[in-house]
Every structure is written in C-alpha cells, then in structure tokens.
C-alpha cells in the first residue's frame, strides 16, 4: 500500500519490446521515489524504472553536491546509491524493483533537485583534495563542532535502530572448481570443468548469467541461450546469481556473498575451492573531461543495458564518442530505438571530445573542432579496466599492457588459480568460449589431481587507443568527487606515489573501490609526473570486491544453550532463569530467602545438573587423582567420597569438587559447573602428554546424569521414600560416602552424602532421561514434608552461610591454594602434584592474600561484592568476594580476601563501599557463619 503524491507529468522513456529485455510487462509494480509514486515492471532495476518514468537525477555527489545520474548502470554505479525503506546504500542500478518499495535519495537538502550543498561548488578551490588534512586543526577546542559539521556532510543513508533484524545466513562449500564470473568465458569454464568430472560453483554478480551477451544483438542472444541451457542442464554446476566473490584468501578460501535469497537477506558462502577460475570480465572505464559527471553522460555499456535489458530510452539526441566496437554498437542501438544520434565521434579519425556543458544536466557537447552540439545524451566508449582483484589476492601483480591500454594479470598465479575471458584478453565470442572451456577443463584436472595437461588457446588483449583524459579536467573519482586537477595538484605537492596519492586524495577509496577510477587515476598521475603508466604502477586491490553487510559477516546467529532435563518443570513453575555459561538455570522461584528457610527447616531440592561429571576407569586412577588434586587419594575406600582442589602449575586454584570411588578401578569425579569442560581437558592433557602409560580412561558424563541436591533436615526421610535398595541411615551411609542404587524405580543412580549448603543433604545423579520423572516424584512424594525447589541464589546464600567458597568468585586468577584457606587440604609432603613447587614457595613465603569470613558491624548492611578493604591511609588491603544477607542468622555475612596480616580472627577491617563510605567489618574465626562445627550436614 503506497500513500504518496502522484508523480508530475514527465517524459516517459519506456521503449517497445526489446529482444533481450528482462522486464515482464505483464507484472506492473508500484513504488515511490522521494515520496512520489512511480510504476515499473518486474525485472526492472530501481533506476531503470525511474528512468523509464523520466527521472534522471538519483543522488548528489559527495563533496560538491553535483547532481548525479546513471554512469555504468551496474552495481558499481556511483551515482545510483539510494535508501530503500530502512536499508541504506542500496545499489539502485542493480537492485531489482519490488512492489511497494519506498526509495529515497540519500543526499540533497532540502531536496534532491534543489540542494543547498551545491554551494560547495562556489568554494571548491578551498576544499580540494586533502583539504581536511590541512584544516580543522586549530583551535583544537573547536574539534567537536567541526566533527558535527563534517558528519552532517558525510554521505550515506540512515540506519534505523528500530529496523527488524533481517535473516542472514552462512554456508560452507567445497567445490572442485569455483568460477568467478558468469559471462560467456565463465559459463564455458564451468562447463569445461563439469564435463571433466568436477563439481563446480559458478558465481555471477548480475541476476542472470550471460555477461555482455545479455545486452548484445541477436547472435549474442542465441549464443547466450545455448550456453545458459547447457549450464542449467549440467548436474555438476551450481549456479549462484546475484552473488559476488568478495575475496580470495590463502589456500583458495573464497568468500561468496549471495544476495536476496528467498528467505535470507544475504548469505556468506565460505568456499574452499580446489581451483579458482577468475572470469570477472572487463569493466568499461569513464573518460575524464570537463562536465563528465553531468546527468546524461554515460558509458556505452550503460546505454546498451538501458536499451536492451530494460527497454529504456536514455535520451532524445545523442553524441557518441566511440573509440571501440562497444561505442559503435551503442550508437547502433540508440539509432535503432529512435534516439537521434547527432554525431559519432571517432578518436581514431581525429575526433576529440572537449567538454560537456549544462546546468544540472547535459545540454551541449563541445568537440575538438570547436563545434557545439545540442544534445541530452553523451555516450563514451574509451576502453576497459580488467578487475584483477582476485588474481591480485592470489599473489599476482598486474602489469600494464601499453598496446591494449589496460592492466592485465602479471602471469604469476599459483597452480590453483586460473583466469579466462576478458581479464586475460579479447576476441570473438568463439575465442572467449574456447578459452573458457579449456581453462575450466584444466582447472578440473588440477582439482582432481590428473596429470594430463590441457592446451589452453592464446587469448591476447586487443590493441586499444590510450584514452584517459581530454584536454580539459574532469571527475576521476565519482564517488569521492576527486577531479583530475586535484590529482595534478597533489602530485605537485609531492604525492607522486600512486599509493600515497590514493590516500591523500581519496581517489579510488569510495564505494566503487577503484573499479571505475583506478586506471584514470594512474594515467593522470603518470601525466603529471612525466612518467609512463607502467612506471607509475597501480594500487593494490584488497577484499572485499563488493560491500558486505555486517549481517552477512555475522551470518546465522548460533548461540548454543544447554538445558537440564528438568527445564520443562522449571519453566512451568515460575523459575526465573539465569544464564550460566551456556546453561539456562533457575535463579529462584520467586523468593530466594523463603527457599533458604525451607531448606533449613524442611527440605528443598535444587537442580545441579550442569555440575561437571567425569567417569574415571582404570587401575591408575588414584595416581591421576593424586596428581591433579592437592590432597591425597591413595587410600580412598570404595564407597567413599573425598573433597579435592585442583591447582594450575602456578599453584592457582582452578577447580574443586568431590570424587567418589564406585569400584576398585572406577571413580566418579564432580567438578564445578563452569569448570566442567576445562577440567576434562586438564586431566586429558596430563594423561596424554605427561603420563601416557597410565591406564586411565576419562569420559565426560555431564549430561548423562540429571543431578539433584536434596537438602534439609528432612532430606533423608524424603529420599528414603523413593530408595528401596540402599540403607540411608547415618550409621550405614554417613557423611562423605557414595552409594549406587534405585531411585523411584530408576536403577543405576549414584547418591552422595555431601553438603554444599551446610545441611544434611544427598546429591543424587540419575540417568538423565529419567531426571524430570525423578524430580517430579521428589516433589509429589515430599509434599507432606514441605519439600520445595530452590534456585542458585538460595544455594549461594546457604553456601556463604556455611563458608564454602566458589572458585572464580572467592578466588581469582592469582589466588593460590594457601590464599584460599586450603592449608588443611594441601599436602606438600606428597611426591608431586600439579602446582606443588609454587605452593611450596608460597608456604615458605607465608605471604599473599587470605580468604576470611567477615561480618559487617552494621548487621543489615550488605557490602557490594568487590568492595575494597582499605587501610587507614587508603591503601587497598583486600576486597569482599561474596556478600549476602543471611535469612538464617539474620545479619549480613561476607567472605573476603585480605592481606595475610589482617587475617586474624577479631581484626576489624575497613570496607570502602562503592558510594565512598567506610564501614567496619570483623574478621571471623571461621569461614562459616552458621554451624561451623558441621553438625547439621553430618547429621
């Protein structure tokens, strides 16, 4: 639905049916341009539809705000960049028209036609090339103002924060042969490769295969149909149209950007091609003369595209400056469709183009003989640029072919990269196709490792007059508004290296990225310095060949999330989720304090499935445990569990957990949730690198078991209702023991008597598929016992009440085991263990921080975690690592790391709060604030 003004009456330029036209006249589309309604056909580009309706100006230039129109009628046309809806920088000479499109010019204020920015032309002499390197420097304090002004003038569309995210995609591909360019040589190369047995990806920037054949005559169209049909019928060729090879990287890693797919805005294909065939064709280059950017001045291929592909009449009266066959063909096309071709100027016959004249659009052309011709269309055909970007990226340096007046590949390509078509040389269609086929066959043979060599026929660049600039100065870089006189001035200032000139003037640095400008830039510099073009050299082309959106680079958003088997229950019972690494876990079910009280008074259950779990088997497991843990493991009985701490080789605590011995050669290790993967890698690393002879197999069982901690004074009673085959009495199943049995009918469950919360508790590990079932049974069978779920927050509070530290929360990247208060655990008399030398040293030094229990004097003040502990002079003496209000003892409680000298029970330290207040807190005798004797958990 379009709500807009109707366009005023304008000259309609739509032609009758053309033989090769892409438009479907049976499908009319409506769209708006700057709020004015227009109509076009399916198959039109935005620009062709606008031109058919008489529009000629699509943008204003970057610096001087000169009106701009069609130059090349391709993706790279610098004058045809627009905003479509909320999408900025749309290439309107390429983008197909869609019904309902809202197209707007990106430049021009208050309007495209009357742009006050055009006043810049009056002060052009002050804002020449490199002016921003010389201005806006002083006074420095005004820079923020300068910045705002410069931003105001910056080109580009509007990105709207409210725009919905598009769908972007990524794909990996491994073709034998990837052909970049779907013109006749590219199609032939794909066929040659596929016929030789290779699987081929053929990439074409336009919406359809064919290259220049598409806008050629009847013979070209016949040849095009034959090639297209053959390609389409070949099962070994995957065709990607409206796609572009944006770069070639090491080992033929080729990036292909696919656009406008049915369900995807853009897709980045990461292709690892065994061989790459570059068939990128030729790009017609503009001619430099005064007024060469006036609307109405265009390249011969642009005129032919408009006429033959979109049935658009580009003007009424034309002058054609034709130095080659393309110009002659354009003149013929224009004449055929009723454009009055007033003059065909042939430089080979001495014809000269001096300047184009007009206010806002072309009105006259001045020729070398002094004649002035009134016209509204000037077509130039002065030569070609070979886009050598992909061969450059493969290590080749282009060389200038003086005879052909263009740069060509230098001939230093690796075996895995070949080139064909216009980039290599010129010739009739048959020659291009023959070269393409042979090149494709050779590419396939190289990809498939065949030894037989393929004869590739010669394809030489044809002679062409060297026409770059007329006797007048004009635009060289249309994107950046760089004139040839700017380049001459820069050369006079000493910027005589083409790479420096590029950066100083920004020539070739605009959206076209040198495709239209490079050769002219080099030629003007060569002329200004008196050197040859070959001596001047060219700039290096870097990826990307065409712009890639950030969305395409990001691709499909793949952010793995992990769920516990009990997640459906948590979802349906009001759990507030918290992201813990990749896991989604319940933080609480509404009231964490109530959950704490319920555990302390009745019984609670918590889902601890993300805990790391390693199955350790083999006769040498105890050796492994002795090495990776700081304490001793040689005498752990079957059925017993022991707490252990792991340190890195620097003695820093990296993980903790318990390990139980299930059988003589079978142990079950638990780790922290966050350390599960790292600990698995840690033990495997030691086994594989230092102890390969040890007979130990380690298997991660993180997800094999659903893990539930049943905590509280009534936990034994609850579990007992579901366990028929294990005696849970304290006499036969005491603290720090493990049993295997049946829970709610599920066999093979492990039960540990451990207690992170400081309560009597059982940690059960149930085969994961039954996790939800067992959880639901615990909840239903324990109703009368007051069972309730508790989340991570309640667990954190209770473990803090009990003084159990959390690795990574109460320790950091430099906290060695003795600093964490683990003196009682670290056995320095063991022969060896990971981190021992550092811990021996720390023990001898006796320095470092110490983890202590702390209680603020203000019982209701909970210092923020990371609050500093400071000395009277303000020096940092430690920090609060954990802090909460304890519902159990009714006061604030903390753990903190403090200097060793302060780690004495009764010491009053000063805590500096984030708001700057200093508050006192007392160092406690134990880490535990509640039940330091452990009578509850041992109950």
């Amino acid at each position, binding site marked *: 639905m379009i709500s807009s003004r109707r366009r005023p009456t304008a000259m309609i330029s739509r032609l009758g049916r053309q033989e090769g036209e892409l438009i479907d006249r049976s499908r009319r589309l409506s769209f708006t341009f700057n709020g004015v309604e227009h109509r076009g056909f399916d198959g039109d580009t935005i620009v062709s539809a606008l031109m058919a309706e008489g529009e000629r100006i699509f943008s204003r230039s970057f610096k001087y705000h000169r009106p701009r129109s069609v130059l090349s009628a391709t993706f790279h046309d610098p004058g045809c960049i627009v905003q479509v809806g909320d999408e900025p920088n749309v290439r309107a000479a390429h983008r197909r028209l869609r019904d309902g499109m809202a197209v707007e010019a990106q430049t021009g204020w208050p309007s495209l036609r009357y742009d006050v920015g055009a006043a810049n032309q009056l002060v052009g002499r002050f804002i020449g090339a490199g002016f921003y390197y010389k201005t806006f420097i002083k006074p420095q304090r005004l820079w923020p103002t300068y910045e705002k002004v410069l931003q105001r003038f910056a080109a580009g569309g509007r990105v709207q924060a409210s725009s919905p995210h598009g769908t972007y995609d990524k794909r990996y591909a491994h073709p034998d042969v990837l052909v970049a360019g779907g013109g006749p040589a590219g199609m032939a190369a794909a066929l040659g490769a596929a016929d030789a047995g290779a699987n081929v990806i053929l990439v074409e920037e336009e919406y359809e295969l064919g290259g220049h054949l598409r806008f050629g005559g009847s013979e070209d169209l016949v040849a095009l149909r034959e090639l297209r049909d053959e390609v389409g019928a070949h099962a070994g060729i995957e065709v990607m149209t409206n796609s572009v090879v944006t770069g070639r990287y090491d080992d033929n890693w080729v990036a292909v950007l696919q656009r406008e*797919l049915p369900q995807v805005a853009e897709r980045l294909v990461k292709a690892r091609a065994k061989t790459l065939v570059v068939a990128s064709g030729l790009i017609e280059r503009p001619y430099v003369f005064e007024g060469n950017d006036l609307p109405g001045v265009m390249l011969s291929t642009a005129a032919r595209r408009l006429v033959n592909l979109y049935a658009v009449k580009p003007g009424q009266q034309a002058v054609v400056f034709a130095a080659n066959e393309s110009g002659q063909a354009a003149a013929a096309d224009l004449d055929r469709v009723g454009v009055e071709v007033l003059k065909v100027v042939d430089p080979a016959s001495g014809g000269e183009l001096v300047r184009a004249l007009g206010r806002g659009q072309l009105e006259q052309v001045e020729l070398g003989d002094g004649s002035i011709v009134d016209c509204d269309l000037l077509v130039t055909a002065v030569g070609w640029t070979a886009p050598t970007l992909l061969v450059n990226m493969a290590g080749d340096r282009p060389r200038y072919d003086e005879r052909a007046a263009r740069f060509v590949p230098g001939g230093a390509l690796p075996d895995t990269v070949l080139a064909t078509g216009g980039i290599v040389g010129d010739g009739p269609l048959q020659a291009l196709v023959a070269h393409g086929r042979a090149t494709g066959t050779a590419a396939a043979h190289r990809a498939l490792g065949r030894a037989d060599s393929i004869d590739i026929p010669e394809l030489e660049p044809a002679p062409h007059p060297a026409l770059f600039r007329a006797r007048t100065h004009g635009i060289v870089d249309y994107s950046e508004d760089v004139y040839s006189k700017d380049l001459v001035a820069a050369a006079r200032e000493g910027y005589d290296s083409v790479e420096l000139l590029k950066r100083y003037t920004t020539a070739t640095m605009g959206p076209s990225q040198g495709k239209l400008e490079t050769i002219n830039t080099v030629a003007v510099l060569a002329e200004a310095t008196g050197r040859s073009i070959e001596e001047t050299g060219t700039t290096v082309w870097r990826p990307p060949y065409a712009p890639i959106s950030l969305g395409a680079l990001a691709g499909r958003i793949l952010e793995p999330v992990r769920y516990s088997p009990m997640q459906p229950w948590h979802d349906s019972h009001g759990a507030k989720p918290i992201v813990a690494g990749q896991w989604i876990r319940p933080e609480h079910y509404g009231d964490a304090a109530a959950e704490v009280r319920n555990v302390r008074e009745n019984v609670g259950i918590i889902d601890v499935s993300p805990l790391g779990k390693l199955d350790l088997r083999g006769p040498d497991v105890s050796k492994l445990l002795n090495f990776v843990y700081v304490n001793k493991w040689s005498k752990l009985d079957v059925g017993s569990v022991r707490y252990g701490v792991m340190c890195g080789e620097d003695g820093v605590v990296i993980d903790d957990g318990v390990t139980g011995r299930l059988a003589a050669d079978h142990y079950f290790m638990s780790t922290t949730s966050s350390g599960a993967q790292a600990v698995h890698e840690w033990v495997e690393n030691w086994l594989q690198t230092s102890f390969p002879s040890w007979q130990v197999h380690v298997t991660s069982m993180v997800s094999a*078991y659903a893990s539930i901690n049943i905590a509280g004074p009534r936990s034994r009673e609850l579990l007992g209702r579901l366990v028929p085959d294990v005696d849970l009495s304290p006499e036969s199943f005491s603290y720090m023991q493990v049993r295997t049995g049946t829970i709610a009918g599920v066999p093979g469950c492990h039960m540990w008597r451990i207690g992170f919360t400081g309560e009597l508790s059982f940690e059960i590990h149930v085969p994961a598929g039954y996790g939800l079932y067992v959880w639901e049974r615990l909840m239903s069978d324990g109703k009368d016992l007051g069972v309730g779920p508790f989340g991570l927050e309640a667990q954190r509070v209770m473990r803090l009440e009990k003084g159990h530290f959390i690795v990574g929360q109460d320790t950091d990247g430099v906290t060695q085991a003795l600093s964490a208060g683990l003196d009682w655990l670290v056995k320095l008399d063991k022969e060896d263990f990971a981190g021992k030398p550092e811990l021996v040293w720390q023990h001898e030094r006796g320095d470092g921080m110490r983890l202590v229990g702390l209680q603020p004097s203000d019982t209701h003040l909970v210092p923020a975690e990371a609050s500093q502990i400071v000395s009277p002079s303000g020096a940092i003496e430690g920090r609060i690592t954990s802090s909460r209000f304890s519902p159990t003892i009714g006061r604030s409680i903390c753990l903190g790391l403090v200097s060793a000298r302060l780690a004495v029970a009764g010491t009053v330290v000063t805590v500096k709060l984030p708001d700057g207040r200093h508050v006192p807190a007392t160092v406690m005798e134990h880490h535990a604030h509640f039940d330091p004797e452990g009578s509850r958990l041992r109950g």
Partner: protein
Amino acid sequence: MVARSPIRARGPVGREHGWEVSTTARKGGLELCDLTPYSKVLVRAGVLSKAAEVLGCALGLARRAPDGTLVAGTGPGEWLLVSGAGTWPALADEIGGGDPTALTTVVDVTHGGFLIRLSGADSRRVLEKICAIDLSDGVTPDGAVFRSSVARIVCDVIRDDDGGVRSYLLHGDRSAGQYLFDAVLDAGSEFSIGISGYREKEA
C-alpha cells in the same frame, strides 16, 4: 516411570521402551528425527587391541554389525556403538570381558547424548550451513564418521545413508539436544524440512 529425550516430542506422543517419543508419521523428503532413545555405548581401547579387532572399524569409519548395531570409529581408540532402544549391543559384551594387554572400557552413554537423524537428498545442503566439513561423497561417503562443530556444538557425525537416501546421524551432548535440533530445523527451513516420529531402524 518414563524417560524423556532432551528434544521436546512434537505431535502425537507414545511410549517406546519406556521413552516418551513422537509418533508423527514420516512425511518423506527432507526430515529430521529424534532417535535419542537408541542405546549408545562408548568403547575405549587401544587401536591395536583385541577390542579394536572385534569392533573392526577404523577411526573415521562406520559399519553395521550382524545384529544391526552401528559401530562408528569416533576417535583415536574410541568407538560409539548404537543399537535399538532398550537393547545392549552384543559387541559390547564381546569386548567387555577385558583385555589383559590393554585397558578396555565400555560405558553406557545412552542418557548422555542426543541422537538425531537428518535424512533426504538435501540433507547435505542443510548440514553445509552449520558444519564446515567437506560433505562431498569423495571426502565423506556413506559410512564416514567425523567429529566436528555443528552449529557450534561438538558432534559425532555419521554418514549413514538410509535405503540409498543420504542420511546423517548427529550425536552430541544431551544438554544441547534441543538447541541443535532447532538449529538444524532452522537451517533446513528453506528446503522444507519436516519432523518425523521415532522409528527403530537400528533395532
């Protein structure tokens, strides 16, 4: 007592060997099927051990044992045995007796991993969107096994064509099962992927 897959059963639901499963009919074409209830056994042994000889399958390859068990060489000295739900692969018993010359362990990982089957002519194109491995017949033919990142999840990928139709089994950590299932569905949406109910080909 009911066991559940990490992947939410869609459509009509039934029970198979104590597992809750989707009984959605096969639709043919490109389809994704949750086979998590299948028995999955991890064997670790030396590559030159007796167990390796019995398993008869090198790293990177898969084969079918006479009882239908799929044996996949998933790592150096590591094999994954997949058989029908509620069964225990006979091979596991055969090698589980122990080898005095080398440590051999057999661990039931049925509950530790998801197992999904992606089948159909376009299955390669779906997988290519979320896995960087070369899926061409030359590199990963029927019977090929590799461990790789699939949608950023470590998976054992087994090319296990089904009656001449290209098919992949994906096995990975259970906790990421729903995520990966959704990721494959999302990648396959442009190819009209569908979900089919549980079936017992391997049984």
